[in-house]
């Protein structure tokens, strides 16, 4: 087994009215992990604790062999790159935006980007297919294109761990699959470790090799998609009746919903009041 890239031990953190408690996660280097769970379960709180935006009360977050709490902001930014849910970069050209990923490496007093900075930015923009927008403003791009530019910016930070907060929300299925394919490619070809918060259980199942199911501020289950996405777990956490079946193409579990009408018809047909 690979050494871990992210190791969270007995983490407690949160706000006065909402606490995460006793979170333990061990994420091996090179894995593609997903945090799933209902609204208000603590996904984003956990995410904010890992990004360092939210202070932790007790426990420890280790990034490789470095303690996240003692890591200086610049070093943290060299190790973890974050793609937020809302990009909101406004009137910045796409190339300038991506180049901001080099800030953690630039001396505070450097005025112009170095040749290296420009080369690295171009490389990742080509990889994410955003080089063709380089002179457009961020605000002129569509949601999916902005998300890709944000991923290019994050890659330009050359991180060990890439964190994404719901990278596919508000996107149509084409862009969802495109973005996740890009992430999968990065994960497989560069060995980049990816951790994302994601709502869509089927996407999570298809793309992630590890899932962390969060509920009411605690980890309900974690493991492979097959271990986590059982109908018992999902019904328990989401309070919704579902059926899971393997996807005929990938063999990964796929989650099917049951509407109230269908449930009623089934119970009428079988004579079973359930």
């Amino acid at each position, binding site marked *: 087994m690979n050494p871990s890239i992210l190791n969270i031990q007995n983490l407690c953190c949160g706000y006065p009215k909402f606490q995460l408690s006793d979170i333990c996660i061990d994420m091996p280097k090179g894995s593609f992990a997903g945090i799933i769970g209902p609204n208000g379960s603590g996904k984003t709180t956990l995410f904010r604790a890992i*990004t360092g935006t939210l202070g932790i009360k007790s426990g420890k977050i280790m990034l490789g062999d470095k303690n996240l709490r003692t890591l200086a902001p610049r070093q943290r930014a060299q190790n973890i790159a974050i793609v937020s849910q809302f990009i909101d970069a406004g009137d910045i050209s796409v190339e300038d935006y991506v180049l901001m*990923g080099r800030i953690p490496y630039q001396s505070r007093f450097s005025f112009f980007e170095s040749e290296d900075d420009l080369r690295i930015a171009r490389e990742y923009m080509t990889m994410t297919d955003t080089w063709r927008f380089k002179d457009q403003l961020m605000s002129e791009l569509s949601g999916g294109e902005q998300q890709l530019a944000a991923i290019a910016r994050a890659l330009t930070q050359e991180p060990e761990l890439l964190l994404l907060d719901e990278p596919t929300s508000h996107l149509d299925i084409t862009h969802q699959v495109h973005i996740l394919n890009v992430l999968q490619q990065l994960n497989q070809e560069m060995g980049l470790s990816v951790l994302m918060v994601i709502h869509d259980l089927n996407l999570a199942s298809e793309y992630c090799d590890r899932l962390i199911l969060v509920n009411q501020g605690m980890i309900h289950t974690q493991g492979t998609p097959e271990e986590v996405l059982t109908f018992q777990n999902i019904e328990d956490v989401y309070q919704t009746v579902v059926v899971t079946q393997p996807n005929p193409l990938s063999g990964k579990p796929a989650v099917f919903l049951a509407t109230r009408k269908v449930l009623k018809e089934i119970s009428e047909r079988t004579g079973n009041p359930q």
Partner: protein
Amino acid sequence: MQKKHLRWVIYLAGLLVLLVASVILSLSVGEMNLGFFDIFSILGKGHSSMEYTIITQIRLPRVLLGIAVGGALSLSGVLLQGVYRNPLVEPYTLGISGGASLGVAIAIVFGLHQSIGSFVLPLSGFSGAFLIIFLVYSISSRNGRINIQSMLLTGVMISFIASSSMMLLMAITSAENLHGIIFWIMGSLDEPDLSLIYVALVMAFASLAVSYLFVQPLNALRLGEEKAKHLGINTDTTIKLLFLLASMLAGVCVAVAGVIGFVGLIIPHLMRLLVGSDYRTLLVSSFLSGSIFLVLSDVIARTIISPNELPIGVITGIVGGIVFLLMMSRSSAQLMRNK
């Protein structure tokens, strides 16, 4: 060199040429009009002529103060807008002008400038401004962290309190004092004390240099506070230091030249439209165009009803507002066409 950098150099050169031109214009017009190009020969001839005295003793100090105050107010505005990510913030939003005016009003009402000396006015203006900055800062900082949104509201409220207190003083004082207060509030580049002008000049240029130590955090802050943190920027320290720098700049300006409004609001705006929002070029462009704007406004203020003089704040407000509206309607018309 990248295309972007070439564009910056061109804009910068253009602004420098404009600044030199407005300085020469300002030196040449007035009660006694001199030719635009005669300035050089008059200065070349040396001390003897009356023209030389007018230029160096009367007009040059005003021009220098215009460069300092215009540049400083505009720089202060662009820094605050960057820190707050809010295009409507200007140096006076946070109560700096209110505090300075209150300080001066107190000094005038109690006759301090007559009993102690005229230097009391700028001093009390600066003290008033500084007191307000200190209040706003300490009210909105908790555990060493600053909530910038609540700070903005705090500033606006304290500003109201300060200006209302000043009106209270104005309501109960004599007509003569009232005139003095109003005259001071309206702002003027007419400053008899040369050393104050030098202080303002040195402050302005030193602050411009210091602000360049913060271009990287300022650029990162364009993405928002949290995202700047993700890029490894220590946003708390940056915001605190830039707030202090911008407030001090505005405080010095108000103390020396009175409340000259609008420069800090519209010049950074126009520059964002013109040169873009990258702080590497925005800071110096805003400074230079603030200087140009104030030097030209002063030319208008002292020639339009010559031999009398209009308060410069009136000119900056009217001219600036109209130019700004024109620019906005043009750029929104362009946006409509592009859609």
